């Protein structure tokens, strides 16, 4: 498999959970990492893990919903070199019944999950076009594919990420920039464990997930690494669901 030696990858929301795992796995394959997060301490910790893996790290702290701030911190990362890989991982989730979703909550979900993805793409695109290469991996969700109750705004925002993925694949293919998405299903992140507890996770796994377990962040990171590398050089506009057999849809 093609490694990522000499590549520079921007991973958004890389301070915790799946984003941190993506940063670690890409670093293990040889990439230097721009660690973006809104929480500085978390980003610094991830940067340390990247350095432990023997790669360079640059920390970029900002609210991804703020396009101007993001462009500024990404500009500072130029010291590391040009960005070849963008992993649009930053995202937020809220469990709120439809009737109770206030406008501000709706707006914030879309500001981070959709506008944040848009902002990061804007920040790296000129350089990728100049060099005529780049790999974008957006993080969708099986919730955006099949719907889940109790988080309609989140489902819609992830559906939007799928739309961006497909449109960008077509718009930027002429510059050899590939755009794909991973679509995680039930993954045992720190947040999942906090919300459901291990007992709840085991119960749901047995009842609902064909492979009878939750995924681990690494299961998703490996798909990110595959899509980011040259081994996926003829793959663009596609979605890889990592869901243990949930969300067997589409064609």
């Amino acid at each position, binding site marked *: 498999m093609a490694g990522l030696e000499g590549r520079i990858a921007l991973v958004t929301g890389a301070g915790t959970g799946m984003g941190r795992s993506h940063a670690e796995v890409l670093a293990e394959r040889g990439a230097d990492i721009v660690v973006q997060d809104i929480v500085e301490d978390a980003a610094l910790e991830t940067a340390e893990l990247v350095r432990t893996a023997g790669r360079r790290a640059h920390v970029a702290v900002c609210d991804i919903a703020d396009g101007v701030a993001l462009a500024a911190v990404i500009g500072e990362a130029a010291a590391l070199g040009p960005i070849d890989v963008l992993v649009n991982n930053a995202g937020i989730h809220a469990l709120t019944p439809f009737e109770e979703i206030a406008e501000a909550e709706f707006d914030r979900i879309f500001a981070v999950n959709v506008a944040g993805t848009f902002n990061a793409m804007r920040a790296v695109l000129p350089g990728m076009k100049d060099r005529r290469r780049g790999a974008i991996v957006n993080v969708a969700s099986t919730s955006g594919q099949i719907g889940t109750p109790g988080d309609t705004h989140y489902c819609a925002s992830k559906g939007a990420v799928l739309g961006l993925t497909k449109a960008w694949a077509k718009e930027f293919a002429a510059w*050899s920039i590939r755009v794909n998405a991973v679509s995680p299903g039930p993954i045992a992140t720190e947040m999942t464990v906090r919300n459901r507890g291990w007992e709840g996770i085991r119960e749901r796994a047995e009842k609902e997930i064909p492979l009878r377990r939750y995924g681990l962040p690494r299961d998703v990171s490996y798909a990110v690494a595959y899509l980011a590398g040259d081994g996926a050089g003829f793959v663009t506009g596609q979605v890889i669901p990592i869901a243990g057999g949930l969300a067997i849809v589409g064609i």
Partner: protein
Amino acid sequence: MTSLAGKTALITGAGRGLGRQHGLTLAERGASVIVHDIAGDAAEETAGMIRKAGGEARVVGCDITDVAAIKETFGALGTVDIVVNNAGTHEARLIEAISAAEFKNMMDVHVKGAFFTVQTLLPDMKERRGGKIINTASAWGQCGWHTDSHYCGAKAAILGLTKAWAKEFAPWGIRVNAVSPGVVMTEMTRLNRTDEEIRDLAEKHIPIGRLGLPEDISNAVAYLASSEADFITGQVLPVNGGEFIVGI
């Protein structure tokens, strides 16, 4: 790179084209490859290429449309960790020109062949509670084409098998996925089109601006075959340069 060391992979139709490249790629990652083809010479040639590259290969031959032969040949293989259902056939035809025999052969090679290959190997996979099945669909089976409706139908049936098997075999930890190639540069492509036609196709119809290479598809197969894809089942991985972006 996740190694496939210690794994045995059966690849059907591995005597040429995509199947041959799958054999080379999986062997390069450490798998011991069983090269199947109906044409013994072609299979031996693939096995020779694998061995020359330092890999491990053996050859089996049977007609993939002959269920008794499949049971006899594949039933004697012992442990198979990875099955790549690659054997296929293709002929450009309008519906009026497709005879009943051609229709039957198209379905038998793709659908019946894959079906009974898996039925034969499944008991051992179930007993060992693991295994990876990778089917070969096609962009044409996802999106249709102006000709070759029997081929499109057969490839769509492969998608149905993939999704159903994923659910049926999941309790035993057996993962089932499909790769779905678009237009790939194989010997057959070179035979059927002029260089100018190929350039034209790449420039006008394939967003990424080139045809696929067999390696592009083999890399997807190798990824799905590896433990890195252990939480993926029932999915279709299209490798088509952006020419076909569908589903969700």
